[in-house]
Each structure stands twice: as C-alpha cells, then as structure tokens.
C-alpha cells in the first residue's frame, strides 16, 4: 500500500506540465489596509489568476510578480476582502484592502485538510481562533473550548497540569472510545491516553493514574485556528477514527517576506478551591497541606521567509508546580515547519517536526490507593496538626530502616500523606515526535494531487518507587518497584486527488484518495508486586526483584493496520444549492478476514436561502441537512486474543473472550439538519441544528454463566441513540469606533437513550453492560436498556413513608423498593451527563482595553461524592459530623429512635457504604474565564510591533453549585468513573498574568 502511494506520487510528478508564457513583465506595488491610517500589510497572497504563479507581500507590504498585460492579479488575506486588479500598462499596482464583513465566504478546513467554502457545508462546524485559546491560558489547550462550542462537553481530569481532558461531542455512544479525533494540519494524530482509571479503589499497581493525552503535549501558541466537526457527516471521510467528531487544528506557518518574532509569557497561580465541607480543624490542616500552585508557560516563535520558502520555528516550555506538594511538571516543545514552492508554485512542499518532552513528578491520582488525600482529609489526631507528620519517617531500630510515622495504624487506603508523596513517589516521562511531510502538485488550475506521510511516536514511561514500611496491601516488607514503558507509533500515508471545476453555473469540488494507517504499540511492564517483593529493601531496580511468581513482567506487542479508499464530491448550483456526497471503504486488520471490509456513505444538501430569495435585512441565511453512516472496527487483538503467559505462573487461567458467531463491523448512522442566519450588518446571527445518531452493532464483551465454560463471549449488538439540539447565537449589541461588545451564546442539549442492549435474535441476551464495575465498593455505572449512557448506581438507604432511614440491628437497611432499577444491590440514582449546557462568552473592547469573560453552565445530571463518604467512614472530619445533630431513624417495625450524625454517617459512610446518601445535583454555573488586557500603543519607530499584557482568571467562582466538588472534573477521561468524585484533586481557582510581545 505504502509502495503503491509512492509509485503514484512519482507518476504524478511526471505529469507536471511546464507552462510557457510570453510577454511577461515585472509588476510591483504596495498593499495596505483601507481606512484613515493605512498600514502596510505583510503576508498578503498575490497570484496571477488562472496560473500557479504567486507571491507574498513583505514586511513593508511590498511585492513583485511577473505578469502579462491583461492578466488579473488577485490579492487575498485572511479576514480581508479579496481584491483583484487587471494588469494594465503600468508596472506598479498598489492595492488597499478592506476588512471583510462577510466572513461567510471563509474557507474552512474540513476532513483530510480539504478546504471548502463555509457556505457549502452541509453539516455543523464551529471555529475557534487562536486568540480564544490563548486569552486565558490553559496547559492543555482543549480546556479552553469549554462553553465556546455548542455540543462539546469538556471534563478535565483531576490530575493537575499535564492531565488529559475528556471531550464529548454530541454525547457518549461507545463502550470503547468516545473521544474525538484530533487532526493537525490534515493528519490524524494518535492519541494514546496512556491508561485511564476504571476502578473506585484505584489501581493497586500505582494508584488511579491518568496517562495524559496528546493535546497536553502541544504548544497552544503554535495553533492558528481550531475547527470542531461535530457529527459523523462532517467526519465521514476520516472513517471510524472520526466517529465521535473531529477537532481540526491548523498550526502556524511562516509567511513570505516578513520576519516576525513573537514572545509570550504567562504566569498563573492557583489554589485548591472546591472540596468537601470539613470542620475548622480539618479545614485548616488541609489548607496547610495544599500548596499554591504556580504555572509558567513561556513561548517564543520566529517566522519568515522568501517567496518560495517560509519557515516557522517555535519553542515553548512549561514549568508547573501543583497544589499537591511535590507534584511538578516540566515540559519543552519545539516545532519547526518549512514550506517551499517549486516550479512556479506547481509543487508545494511542507515539512514539519514537532518534538516534546514532558516530565511529571507525582502526578496526582484519584481513587483510594496511593492517594495522599485519604490521610490528609481524615487526619484527626487530638492535639496534633497534620504538619506534625511532615516529618514522615523515623528509625526502626529492629530493622535499621526509616519507617513510616502516622498517628494510627495505616490501612490499605490510608497512609501518612507526606509518606505517600515522598516514599511512594512516581515519575512520568512522556516524549512525542511528530514528523510529517506533505507534497502538493498543482497539475492545472482545476486539478491537484497531494500526498502526505506522518511518523507519530509517543514514548511514555512510568516509574514508581514504593519504600519499605508502606502499608502491606500495597507493598511487601522490602518495598515495591513499578516500571512501565509504552512505545506507541503511528505511520500514516495518504494520496488525494483534488478537482475543482466550474461548468457555467455548476461547480464541482471533488476528491478521491487512499490512505493507510499502521499503529504499533509495544508495552513493557515490570512490577515487583504486592506479593513478589524486592530482595533488598528500598533498592529500585528490576534485578532486585524476588524471583517468584508474585512479581510480574510482561511484554505486549499490538499492531493494527487500516487501509482505505474514499471519494467525495460537492456540486454547487449557481452558488445557491450544494450537494455533498462522500463514500469510503475501510479494510481493517483487527476484524476477521472474512468480514474486514466495510463501506459507508454520506449525503448532504444545503441551500443558501438568502441568495435564492431576496430577504430584506438578511445578510445570509441557509439551511442544511445531511445523513451519514460510518463503520467501525475494534481495537487490535480484540476478536481472537491468545491466552497470556504469566511470569512464573504458567498460563492465564481463563479462556480469553471468543466471538459468539460472526463478528461484524460496528456501525453508526446519523442524521442532522440545521440553519444558519446573519442579519443587520452582521451584528446578529445564529446557527441552530438538530441531530440524531444511532450507534448499532457494537462489539460487546458479554459475561456468560460461569458454568458455560468460558467467562465472556463477544457479540455485535445494541443500539444507543443520541439526539440533540444545538444553537449558537452571536450578537454585537454595541459597536462604535472605540467600543465594541461581542457576545456569543452556545447552547446544547443531548438526550441519550439505550434503545437496545441485546438484539432479540442474539444467542445471548443481556440486561446490561458494565461501564464502571462496582468491585466490592458501592459505585457503579451500567448501560441498561431504556437507560442512558452515564447512569450511576449507588447503595441506597431504605426509608419509611416519612423519609426516615431504616436502621435494624445496628446497620442501615438497603432499600428494596425499586427492584426494576437495581442491579446487584445498587440502585440507579442519576446520570453523570448534563441535560443541557450553556456557555456565554463575551468580548468587550474599549480603545486599547479589552475585557473578556466566559460564563459556563451545565444543567442537570448528578454526581456522587465518595470523598465525603470516605471521610465520614474514616473520621468525623466533615462539618455535619462535627455539628453532630440528632438524626431520627426507624427500625423495620417502625419504632423511632435517634442516632447522632457521627453514628449515622459512621454507618452510611465508607467506600462500600450507602453512597446513595452522597448524591448531589451536578448543575453548576461558573465564571469560567476572565481576562482584562491592555494593548500598548506603539510608535512607528518602536522596536516592538505589538505589546499586550493581560490579567487573567480561571474558574473564579460559582454562581451556583450543589456538589461539594467541581462536577466538571472527572476522575477518568475514559468512560468509567463519570459522575463520582473519589478523592480527586480539588478543582482550583487561578489568577495569572499574560504578556505577549511581537517584534
């Protein structure tokens, strides 16, 4: 396949036709902005219409180009109305360009980097420009999207700087991956999430750790714009990878003629702000325990070049120390991008290299194991302060070893927090290399061919050193060492033929192409284990492992290859009606060879109402509709996994999952309609849409009766529906010469329903699929027919008619009144997902001052504070336990008695207690972002081109919040553990200063 692409590329290069023209002369001129104070515009593209010849203006707005008499010169620049001038006798052509009001003519980057005019889109796409991302800086740029794109829900992980982000577009549908595809300059990125927590305990092999994600490794300053393609119609060309929507990132590149240096520096300080309601003593201990986090992000970029070759170079670094003591992050990113044109612009070559290294010490964990917050929240030693235990070890003369100090016996989940931070410390090292090459041949003015290739490697390593005298459930007597390396590579290649043709009033824009993607994952895991142990205490190396089957070593190699061909065509009728068709066929190595090919089409139509009819004040109006099907394969080694060899332990005991019958590709069908309008000189507009998506035939792994001789079978089944409504409205209420206020409102409601879990014809009928397994604790999430994705289940207290808890024989009685919503003793108590989300984003400019703020609201949904349950189970540190009011309870016979709050919550609390007592509404409205900036007026002679300083604030306060924690923070950016806080790091409030210099 790769070879085929190479041959094809070589073949096409032979087809390039040297064009010969006579009687050319050199035209030169200056391009400026229109208005009272025209300024020279650098970087304006100048082309000779109908040819491939082009130039760009330099720093002073000057250009030169070869053209003949009668040729038409076209001048274009993003954000300005293009201008064209016919070459006359004069050799000088000066142009003044006007700011474009009609941004509707914008070209948007769509799937595979294919550019389309915005008005021809038959689906919803929303753009965010670089400013929006860098105004209030986040270490992970995706965090900045919250509230700014309708239908997109961001849940940040609780693991601090360098943590991953859960992005959900139009609801969850899959038991596998629900995250969108990230595409940088047309090339899909591999997004290894490095493992996500699934269990309430947290992984005993290192705590519930967040493996981070790829976006945290990208420098936000390199991003020029970001486009969100929400539905399957938009992303059908990406195939299964784009099933959950696509986030397209366009990075900056050099511009001809100008040399520009940008420098930006951000400093943010953050404090733990939103956690459970503790008593004064515990509160002051916690305040002492948490640090003020400091994040500094510095980036510098330089760009410039000649007409034929442009360079963009950037370097950035991030140094962050978290609110958790000892947690810090260091990150360095370099990005080089070269663009060159050859043969009079017939061949454009683009090459870029991105390299990142990231080191994170003590990335915060969630869940119960290895979590310092358990000890910190539950510290209640009379007469002592938590800080007395900052000195976390003391000499044990019997062993001649420094051993853990704590005010009481440690337990599996509770240790001295300072001991965990210093003697159970972890280090994550992540490196990423992304090298890509793109060649584009312009064969004629209507035909071009491009071919691209990428090598994308992520290398993730994790090292955890657990010292002797750590609690025995977590480590044996001599300590424990965990070492894990993951090498994840993706090689991507494609070739695409682009056709743009106009036949009278009919326009055709079409593409055909082929891609191949090969993913390889190599994992090495070594863990001396909870039973195996180390030979010598506190020596952390693999050679120090005890030679017994209690230690684990494993290597995993997985590979997946997907080949595809695709085609798309957009036919325009008089620029008023557009019809869009796409088709794609994939062949995937992860499906059985008998069934590894799957085809899927999409069709869309849009009509520009404002051009078809003449409607008064309407600047622009269109309607759109589209339908798409997208096929999906399964992860590598899912269908026929082999039995595993266990180090020193023979074979894994269970027969691996086996398909029950034939395995089919999964499928998603989606339909959407929408309309977009702009009025009153573009001061008001809206875009509303409706969608419905059915995800059917997912490959479920289904537990079967133990007596069947196997534990799980694989079966294609289910139908999960997401249906929703999205609206974005913009309005410019005030616009004068010195004052402008722009306001954007984004609204989205998604309704998820599990229509079917089993098809009636399936050999195995199931009632539910587990999303978060309860284990021996009392939080779970299940997919149940008639329920919704994200339903949360808890152990609920039985109550009498007056709502009094039933307590019998010294124990609270489990509610048995709702059996149809109860699975294995846990009752449905809510859903982790919001009913609707509303973001209100404002930008106010007065002369040189601008004020931006974002109010982000989510309405509906529930969340459980297992943190509070744990604290009430292990101590009396919550405020209500300290107040210790009397609580009336009844026994089964109806006799009333009272318990103190300490007694009652002592019974209700704990990880496996009555989690139903800890359910809160997840509704919250916050002032998410605030930025006040000043643009310094600089004289013409200034060394600097631009200086801007701003004061920024993040997550400043809640207008409304019910839960003790921030419900938008999620323990996992996978599917599990949504709607529960289990000792996640508290959400923070941050303030900072942002300085941008360009010269």
């Amino acid at each position: 396949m790769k070879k085929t692409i190479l041959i094809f590329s070589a073949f096409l290069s032979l087809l390039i036709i040297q064009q010969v023209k006579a009687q050319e002369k050199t035209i030169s001129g200056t391009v400026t902005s229109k208005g009272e104070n025209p300024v020279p515009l650098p970087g304006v593209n100048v082309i000779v219409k109908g040819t491939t010849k082009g130039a760009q203006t330099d720093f002073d707005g000057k250009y030169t180009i070869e053209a003949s008499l009668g040729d038409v010169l076209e001048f274009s620049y993003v954000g300005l109305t293009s201008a064209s001038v016919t070459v006359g006798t004069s050799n000088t052509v000066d142009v003044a360009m006007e700011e474009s009001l009609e941004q509707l003519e914008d070209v948007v980057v769509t799937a595979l980097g294919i550019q389309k005019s915005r008005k021809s889109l038959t689906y919803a796409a929303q753009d965010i420009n670089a400013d929006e991302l860098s105004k209030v800086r986040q270490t992970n740029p995706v965090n900045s999207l919250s509230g700014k794109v309708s239908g997109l829900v961001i849940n940040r992980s609780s693991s601090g700087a360098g943590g991953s982000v859960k992005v959900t577009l139009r609801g969850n549908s899959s038991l596998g991956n629900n995250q969108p595809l990230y595409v940088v300059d047309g090339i899909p990125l591999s997004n290894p999430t490095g493992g996500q927590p699934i269990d309430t305990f947290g992984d005993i092999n290192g705590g519930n750790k967040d493996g981070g994600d790829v976006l945290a490794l990208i420098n936000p300053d390199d991003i020029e714009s970001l486009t969100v393609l929400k539905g399957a119609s938009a992303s059908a060309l990406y195939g299964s990878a784009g099933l959950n929507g696509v986030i397209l990132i366009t990075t900056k590149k050099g511009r001809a003629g100008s040399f520009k240096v940008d420098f930006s520096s951000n400093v943010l300080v953050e404090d733990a702000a939103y956690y459970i309601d503790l008593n004064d003593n515990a509160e002051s201990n916690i305040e002492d325990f948490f640090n003020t986090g400091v994040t500094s992000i510095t980036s510098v970029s330089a760009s410039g070049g000649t007409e034929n070759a442009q360079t963009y170079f950037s370097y950035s670094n991030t140094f962050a120390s978290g609110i958790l003591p000892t947690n810090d992050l260091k990150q360095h990113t370099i990005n080089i991008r070269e663009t060159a044109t050859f043969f009079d612009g017939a061949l454009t070559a683009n090459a870029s290299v991105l390299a990142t290294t990231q080191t994170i010490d003590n990335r915060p964990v969630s869940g119960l194991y290895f979590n310092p917050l358990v000890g910190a929240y539950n510290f209640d030693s009379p007469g002592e302060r938590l800080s007395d235990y900052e000195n976390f070890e003391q000499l044990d003369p019997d062993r001649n070893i420094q051993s853990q100090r704590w005010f009481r016996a440690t337990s599996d989940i509770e240790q001295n927090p300072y001991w965990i931070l210093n003697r159970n410390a972890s280090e994550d090292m992540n490196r990423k290399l992304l090298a890509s090459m793109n060649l584009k041949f312009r064969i004629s003015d209507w035909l071009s061919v491009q071919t691209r290739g990428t090598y994308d490697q992520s290398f993730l390593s994790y090292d955890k050193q657990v010292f002797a005298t750590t609690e025995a459930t977590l480590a044996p007597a001599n300590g424990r060492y965990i070492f894990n390396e993951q090498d994840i590579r993706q090689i991507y290649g494609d070739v695409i033929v682009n056709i743009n043709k106009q036949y009278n009033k009919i326009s055709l824009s079409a593409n055909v192409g082929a891609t191949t993607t090969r993913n390889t994952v190599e994992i090495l895991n070594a863990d001396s284990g909870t039973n195996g142990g180390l030979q010598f205490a506190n020596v952390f190396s693999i050679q120090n492992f005890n030679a017994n089957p209690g230690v684990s070593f494993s290597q995993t190699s997985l590979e997946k290859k997907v080949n595809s061909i695709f085609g798309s065509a957009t036919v325009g009728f008089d620029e008023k009606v557009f019809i869009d068709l796409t088709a794609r066929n994939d062949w995937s190595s992860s499906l059985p060879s008998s069934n590894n090919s799957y085809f899927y089409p999409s069709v869309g139509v849009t009509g520009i109402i404002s051009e078809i009819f003449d409607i008064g004040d309407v600047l622009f109006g269109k309607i759109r509709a589209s339908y798409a099907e997208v096929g999906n394969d399964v992860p590598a080694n899912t269908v026929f996994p082999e039995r595993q060899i266990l180090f020193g332990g023979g074979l894994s005991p269970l027969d691996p999952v086996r398909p029950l019958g034939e395995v089919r590709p999964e499928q998603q069908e989606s339909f959407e309609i929408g309309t977009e309008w702009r009025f009153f000189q573009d001061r008001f507009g809206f875009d509303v849409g409706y969608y419905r998506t059915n995800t059917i035939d997912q490959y479920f792994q289904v537990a079967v009766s133990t007596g069947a001789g196997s534990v799980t079978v694989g079966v294609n089944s289910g139908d999960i529906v997401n249906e929703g409504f999205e609206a974005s409205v913009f309005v410019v209420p005030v616009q004068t010469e010195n004052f402008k206020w722009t306001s954007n409102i984004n609204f989205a409601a998604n309704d998820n329903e599990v229509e079917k879990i089993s098809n009636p014809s399936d050999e195995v009928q199931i009632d539910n699929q587990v999303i978060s397994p309860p284990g021996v604790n009392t939080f779970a999430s299940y997919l149940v027919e008639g329920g919704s994705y994200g339903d949360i289940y808890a152990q609920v207290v039985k109550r009498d008619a007056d709502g009094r808890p039933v307590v019998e024989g010294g124990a609270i009685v489990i509610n048995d009144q709702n059996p149809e919503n109860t699975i294995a003793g846990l009752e449905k108590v809510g859903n982790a997902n919001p009913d609707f989300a509303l973001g209100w984003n404002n930008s106010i400019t007065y002369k040189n001052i601008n004020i931006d703020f974002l109010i982000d609201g989510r309405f509906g949904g529930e969340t459980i504070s297992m943190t509070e349950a744990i604290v009430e189970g292990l101590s009396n540190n919550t405020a209500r336990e300290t107040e210790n009011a009397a609580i009336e309870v009844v026994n089964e016979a109806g006799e009333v008695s009272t318990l103190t709050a300490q007694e009652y919550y002592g019974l209700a609390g704990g990880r496996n207690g009555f989690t139903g007592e800890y359910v809160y509404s997840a509704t919250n409205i916050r002032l998410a972002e605030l930025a006040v900036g000043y643009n310094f007026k600089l004289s013409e002679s200034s060394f600097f081109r631009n200086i801007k300083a701003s004061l920024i604030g993040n997550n400043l306060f809640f207008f409304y919040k019910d839960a003790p924690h921030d419900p938008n923070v999620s323990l996992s950016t996978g599917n599990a553990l949504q709607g529960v806080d289990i000792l996640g790091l508290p959400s923070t409030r941050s303030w900072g200063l942002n300085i941008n210099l360009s010269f």
Partner: protein
Amino acid sequence: MKNTSNILLSGIVVFSMIFSSCSEGLDDIDGNPRNITQEQLEVDFQNVGSLYKPMFENIYQYTPPWSFQLQQNLNADVFSGYMTNPRPFVAGANNTTYNLVSGWNNFIWSVPYSNVMNNAKTIENETKDEFPELFAVSQILKVTAMHRVSDVFGPIVYTKFGESATTSEYDSQQEAYNAFFSDLEEAIQILSDNIDSPRFTAFDLSYGGNYENWIKYANALRLRLAIRISKVDPTTAKMEGEKSLNHPNGVIETNADSFFVNGTLDHPVKTINNSWGDIRMNASMESILVGYEDPRVDSYFDSSEVTEGEFKGIRNGLSLLPGYDDELAQKADYIDFSLLADDVLTPRVQLMTAAEVFFLKAEAALRGWSGAGTAQANYEQGITTSFQQYSLGGSSDYITNAILTPKDYVDPVTPTNNIAALSTITIAWDEAATNEEKLERIITQKWIAMFPEGQEAWSEYRRTGYPKIFPVVSNQSGGVVDTDLQIRRIPFVDSELQTNPDGVADAVNKLGGSDNAGTRLWWDVPGGNF
C-alpha cells in the same frame, strides 16, 4: 482535454491497483506475539500439563491474597469458628454479621470455576482416551474443588458444565454428590490400572507423581463425602464409605501421606494475618484450645498483646461497636488479639490430613460401617497423629484427660462480648457415652485437627452441630439466619443471577428452599445425628 482524460484514466488505473491491494496482508497482523498460540502450547504437551498448577493452587486460592480473603477467609474461616476479622468491614455490615456482601460471594464461585472446572474440562477433552491417568488425577482435583463449592451453595453446575455457550444447568446437591462418587470411583480404577505411569510426575504439586498416594487420597476424600451424606442418604453413604474403607490401597493413614498443595508462594492467610492485620484468632478457638490446655495452641497462634502472654480470640460477627466511630478505630484495638502462628501458614496449604481421616473412620465406626475399626482407637489415633503433625509430645496425657472443658470467653476490650462456654464436653473417650456425645467428641477433636482449613470445618459444623461454637454478636440478616443455628449457606452469586437467570431459578427449585443464607443444604438435616 486529452490531457485530462489521460490523467483521469491513470487515476482509475492507480485506484484499481490500490483497491486490489487494500485487503492484502491484513490477516497476519492481529494478535500479540508475546502471548502463546495453541500451536506453541502443544509443544511438550503443555496444553495439558500447564493446566494442573492453576487447579492445585485455586482449590484454596493461593494468590492474590485479597481474592482468597473473599473466597474463604471472611466466609468459611470465620463461620467455622477458627478466625475472626478485627476490622468490622463495611461498618460491620458484612458476611460475618450475616449482612451478605454480594461482591464478596462471587469469589467463592468464580475462583474454582475459572481455574479448576474449566481446566478439568480441557484436560478431559485432551487426555481421556489417550492418557487416562492424567484425566484421573484431574478428576480427583475437580471433585476436591467442587464439593467445597457445593457445600457452600448446594446445587452447582457440575455434570452439565460447558454444555451451552452462554447459560448452564445446575445439578441438585444430591446429583452432584452422586457424580463426585462416580468420578472418584472411575479415577481410582484408572489409577489402579496405570499405577506405574510416570506421566504426571512433572505436574504434581502434592505427591510427586505417586499414584498410590493419589488413590489413598481419593479413597479418603470419598470417605469424607460419604460421611457428609450419612444422615440424609445413609444407604449410599455406607456403600461409598465402605468402598474406601475396604479398598486394597486404603486411605491416608500417616502425616506423610496427607494431602497438601506444595505451593511456591506464601500462604495467603499469612499475608492477610501478618501484613494486613485483617484476621485473628476466633473466640471459639480460644475457648476450646485454652480450655483443654491443648499444646497445639502454640503451633496455631501467637500469644496476644492485648492480654500479655495469653491467647485471645475475638467473637465473630462484630458490628461497629458502640464507642467506635469507624472501622479503623475498632481495628486498632482488636488487632492486638492473637495472630495465627507461622507454623500453620507455610507455603504448604493443607487440604486433608491423616488426623481427619482417623476421625472420619471413628465416625464410620459409630455408624457401623465395615472396615472402619473401633471408634475409640481411631479417635485416639486421630489426636496422636495431629500432635505428631506439629511434632508435639504429651498426647497420651491429653487423650486421657477427662476433666478439662471449653472455657468461658472474656473480651478484654468490650465486656459485653463475654460469653459462657457452650459445651462441657471433655477429651477422654467414654465408651459408655451416647453416640451423640461420642460424635461431639470426635467432631470437636477433628475441628481442632483440621485447623486452619475452615471450609471443611464449617461444613461439618453445619452437618453435626459440633463443636459448639459461639454465635455471632450481631446478626444483621433481618431474621433470615437464626443466630443460634448460624449461617447455613451462601446465596447464589450475582454473576450467575445476571448471566444465567433461568439456570438459577431451576437451581433454587433444586435447593428446595429460599435462595438465602438460612436455607439448609440437602445433606444438612435438622435433628439428632443418629
């Protein structure tokens, strides 16, 4: 325009090339080459050989210890009166207070099914015709594991295991026991016919490939199962028991022949006891061993720190006691009671001792089975053999002691837990006593000798009512379990209720009572033992 056609034509040619190559070369990619394929597994017959180790190590699960903790330690090991958890898990609302935690019970079921039953099925398919002796040993291990499961739940999936891809049909406990007998009979016959085959030596974690020992063990196991059903089905019991008692190879009679699994890892209870501090001596053990001044107490337990120098057990079924706000505070006090001693927590996991076999024979003698010898001789030999197992002297004085009785229990931390001894049974054999009293003596001594294997001890307690172990302090079963009769079984597990509801409904029918912890199993017949 001609150029255009050429380009389009070339394009079509190229795309048809791509199309034809798209599906090629994808077949061999999927899979993890670091794992093992069926073909690789067949080298050295490991497709069979590698299956035995997990069977040996999961009858009584070696690792991970937390899984064993749920499989047996917080269940049968506590119900048997051997041990107690110092921490009142789930604020005291857990299995030990009869407030059953369904998430725990799954392990009792899934561990043997996943590791023993599955493997036995594969071994049966691969060896029954060609290497029957390998099949025979696997059948003995299978019965060893599955009678324990049946003794917890009653009906189990046994004869119809693996017949459907997704669901399964249960056998009644009677059907299961009959199948155990016929499987053991077949295995004993096969091994007798292939007594010199060396094939199992490499895989044997118990007897080094010696089939004579395996036959003795199989006979002893059959005797155990026969005694178990002696009340409910005396005819079958006598017939099966006498087969063992009169078999030319005999039953286990020396400590060297006892059935242990020689594991390579620490005893799981050692981790739970020493490292986690999650299990301690039970008050019933203290009452009987200390009351009898039994020297085995030093082999089984360490003296406590709570009452310096004395052995101290904890009452089972403790709720979150008054005065404690949380589990850990209560544990902090009870962790200082007597630990289990390292002597009983070696990597050799004890499943059947010679002493137990003598006590089985003693009971068989009481029941008049041929080949059993006399009850008294077997009883006394049982005690002597148990003393020898721990290299203890003084058994002759002990055997003749007709004065000492179990002692009253005193909780040094929470006096409300104090309780008077429930029995006045003495040690010395009294030939003039009633059969019932003789049986109490036999079972009480068998109970001491079988420590720390709580599963068999709990089964025998339910069958006979002996020894008289203390009831739970807190009974949170909501009236389902009678405090004095104590817990009779564990309900069918959630994983089965969810994946096999029709099978479980049928199993409840076969159980003959409600699917709860108060329902008696088939062999658990109320009333006197004779």
